[in-house]
């Protein structure tokens, strides 16, 4: 195994992009990443594309070939592989690309993520997302995605005394971070009152506790670490790429207040990277719902179990706090094009480690982490990146 570096990044604007197609989005992100690395498409040896549900959202499968074709990579006949793990599809595409380079199978690889969600109505989108749960034994019985996370929130409030205000503060903080990100879907700031008076979706979760339906794409270029300086003066090195699985259904989990796959993937990642939690300067975590961020910062062991809510309310996870979480605005404010999210998280961490994150820059950030969850925790991918 050899070390791997990220030498190029690209990300489209996130939002309801009615004038942009699936093809437009991945071409834009891919070209941006190639340009950033000073490469041409002819240099690319393989492509991994994270995508959850193009079959439902745009009635198109076989998008690996489609992406290679319309990105102009078909002239090299590059192997192009679609990777799917619900909302963790992007994280898996990144890990697949890293493994391909680390194993010396390929030298120059693009890992991308894309989801075009707004070509269908909200009810159909909601149903497509419900397919990340167990269709037969959760969704078919009336479970919705917000409903499953709401049951985790209820259990967390019951076990640790997590409050409605603490949950709301996750959304308030992420909107504040998103307000400084030109790529974010929502750039408005909100208040705790606005969150707790927004309509109920699945009690205790309200509309402003939920990440939105989003179109977007992101891409990164991976190369062997020893070649990184050929392409950039600021390579970002991959220190760990860890993944763990758990039951697909929430009701079969050991715990309803902790995502075990997060704990295990994080332990594997920190062991590989030979780093401590205290070494992490900035992290992008999977806040599909406000409760998900609170559980994530606890399960990643940035905070003790049950301390995630109070720490959030105390500002410890905001830029300037003990460990800034979701400086991009997270899934909540930057948006959540499901297949693209895991790659966007890496793009944000690379910006932070290069020192090019603008107004949302975490001063002196040297090591960052990404945490991408599929479904309610059936798949988790954790990456550690360093300058």
């Amino acid at each position, binding site marked *: 195994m050899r070390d791997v570096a990220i030498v190029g990044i690209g990300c489209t604007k996130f939002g309801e992009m009615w004038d942009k197609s699936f093809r437009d989005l991945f071409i834009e992100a891919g070209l941006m990443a190639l340009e950033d690395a000073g490469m041409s498409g002819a240099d690319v040896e393989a492509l991994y594309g994270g995508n959850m549900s193009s079959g439902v959202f745009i009635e198109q499968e076989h998008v690996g070939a489609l992406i290679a074709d319309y990105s102009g990579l078909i002239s090299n006949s590059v192997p192009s592989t679609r990777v799917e793990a619900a909302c963790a599809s992007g994280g898996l595409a990144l890990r697949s690309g890293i493994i391909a380079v680390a194993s010396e199978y390929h030298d120059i690889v693009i890992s991308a993520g894309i989801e075009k969600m707004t070509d269908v109505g909200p009810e159909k989108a909601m149903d497509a997302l419900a397919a990340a749960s167990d269709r037969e034994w959760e969704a078919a019985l009336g479970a919705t995605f917000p409903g499953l996370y709401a049951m985790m929130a209820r259990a967390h409030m019951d076990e640790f005394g997590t409050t409605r205000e603490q949950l709301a503060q996750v959304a308030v903080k992420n909107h504040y971070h998103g307000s400084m990100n030109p790529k974010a879907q929502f750039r408005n700031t909100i208040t705790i009152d606005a969150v707790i008076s927004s309509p109920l979706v*699945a009690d205790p979760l309200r509309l402003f506790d939920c990440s939105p339906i989003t179109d977007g794409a992101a891409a990164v270029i991976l190369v062997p670490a020893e070649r990184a300086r050929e392409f950039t003066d600021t390579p970002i090195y991959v220190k760990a790429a860890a993944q763990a699985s758990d039951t697909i259904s929430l009701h079969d989990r050991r715990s309803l207040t902790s995502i075990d796959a997060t704990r295990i993937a994080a332990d594997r990642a920190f062991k590989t990277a030979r780093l401590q939690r205290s070494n992490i300067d900035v992290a992008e975590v999977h806040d599909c719902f406000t409760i998900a961020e609170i559980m994530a910062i606890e399960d990643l062991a940035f905070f003790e179990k049950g301390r995630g809510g109070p720490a959030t309310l105390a500002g410890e996870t905001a830029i300037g706090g003990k460990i800034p979480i979701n400086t991009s605005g997270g899934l909540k404010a930057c948006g959540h094009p499901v297949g693209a999210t895991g790659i966007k998280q890496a793009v944000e961490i690379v910006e932070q480690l290069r020192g090019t994150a603008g107004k949302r820059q975490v001063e002196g950030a040297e090591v960052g982490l990404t945490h991408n969850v599929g479904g309610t925790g059936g798949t988790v991918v954790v990456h550690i990146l360093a300058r």
Partner: protein
Amino acid sequence: MNVPRFWRRIPNRYNLIGTKCENCNTCYFPPRSVCPPCRRKGVIREYQFEGSGKVITHTTIYSAPEGFSKMTPYVLAIVELDEGPRLTAQIVCDPSEVKIGMRVKSVFRKLGEDGPDGVIYYGTKFIPA
């Protein structure tokens, strides 16, 4: 969910029939044909659950996809059956009534439908015991 996929599991859905591994005495609902701890050593038989259990956690759904939207708000919970396994199910009660730890028992009810002219799905829900 499409009709064949639902129909295939009708005995399990209507009557709360799961499976039991006779090698380690673990009961499964939803049914499993592989016992994860025993794998190939497992001996899997059908198992009829009593239908009694308690609420482990719950929510009230206000925003639901097609097929369920006419029934909102409805109470959804994770129920732990007395025989051990946990499952996801609706609780037929007022949202203010449901509590963590509440005892419940199974009932046969309509689950949802595929539009006004579509198939009606039946299955197991729970009521306060």
